[in-house]
């Protein structure tokens, strides 16, 4: 599936992660930009987690921007899932 709308989920609070999704044209693949307060220690981990959720939701083409403040894995997964579902128009969300 391909995101149709700009969408976001999460907050800038500590232990949370703000995930923004921008639709891109098909076949452009995934572009994931991460910034984090624990970049040094967890950059790869965050990237793996995000990709895992995108795989599960079958999202191939997306620009995803994540601003992390030390969120744990279940939180990262939840925020990516919420943002993706919002961008697909599956769930009512905010922008």
């Amino acid at each position: 599936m391909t995101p149709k709308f700009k969408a976001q989920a999460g907050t800038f609070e500590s232990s949370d992660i703000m995930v923004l999704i921008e639709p891109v044209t098909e076949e452009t693949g995934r572009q994931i930009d991460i910034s984090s307060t624990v970049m040094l220690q967890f950059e790869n981990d965050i990237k793996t987690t995000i990709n895992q959720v995108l795989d599960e939701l079958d999202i191939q083409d997306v620009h995803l921007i994540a601003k992390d403040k030390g969120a744990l894995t279940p939180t990262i997964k939840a925020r990516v899932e919420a943002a993706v579902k919002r961008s697909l128009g599956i769930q009512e969300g905010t922008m």
Partner: protein
Amino acid sequence: MLYIPGNNPAMIQQSGVYGCDAVLLDLEDAVALNQKDAARILVRNMLQTVEFYDTEVCVRVNNMHTPFGLADLEEIVPLQPDNIRFPKTETVQDVKDFMKEVRRIEKKHGIKNPTMTIHVMIETAKGVANVYDIANADSRIDAITIGGQDLTADMGIVKTPDGVGIDYARKRIVMAGKAYGLDVLDTVFADVNDEEGLREETEYIKKIGFAGKALINPRQVDVVHEVFNPTENEVRKAYRVYSEFIRNKNAGIGVFAIDGKMVDAPVVQRAITVLEYANIDLKEIEKSVAS
């Protein structure tokens, strides 16, 4: 029972460490309308991964009359938290409709022996009026809670620190809960900095029969525990009553006296309640009497 906003990961991930008996992960009033989806997903993920230790976990879903209630159940029921709380219960039919969905989802996920119990929340005048029937509406209901903020709003009055406006509702709900063997839990105390006010209110609601109180900040845990936990003296007395009771029972004696005061079944029952609050294992006492 500590209320935790369902869209706040920092608070959810730490909620098991504050030493409260239960946490309530809230998808209802503590979550903004436009974040209901995000909170639902977050709570679902956290239930699966966060360590809550000995703390019971309850999830408050949205009312079935909102666009969120059913979606909440679909995500939460399969995970079987210790309890699920059904807010703004007003009629027996509300409970029936709610339980029908719960059972349908459990069946769909192949949950044959569901462990999750139901807490109903009474927060409207109509709910207070119907509380006796609601308390008896389904065998899986094991607790009943009063929601003071919504109730005063529904009654069109201001909630005052003395709680006089909801006093009748409190007592009626307690009586309904007692009638059907349910735990009855009290509403929140909103001023986190007023430790004395919290203590006074907790002492009052303990006296009229509540088994616990809702908290909005971990800092309130100690005060409520101090009020509800029996004193060392009470525990010592209860221990003595119960061990004498067992000793006499083993000897075939029903009613006996301690320090010249008669000990009968209600006295023993009160002693058991004290010992349970103090987390003392009755079996241990029985063993020590036997040996």
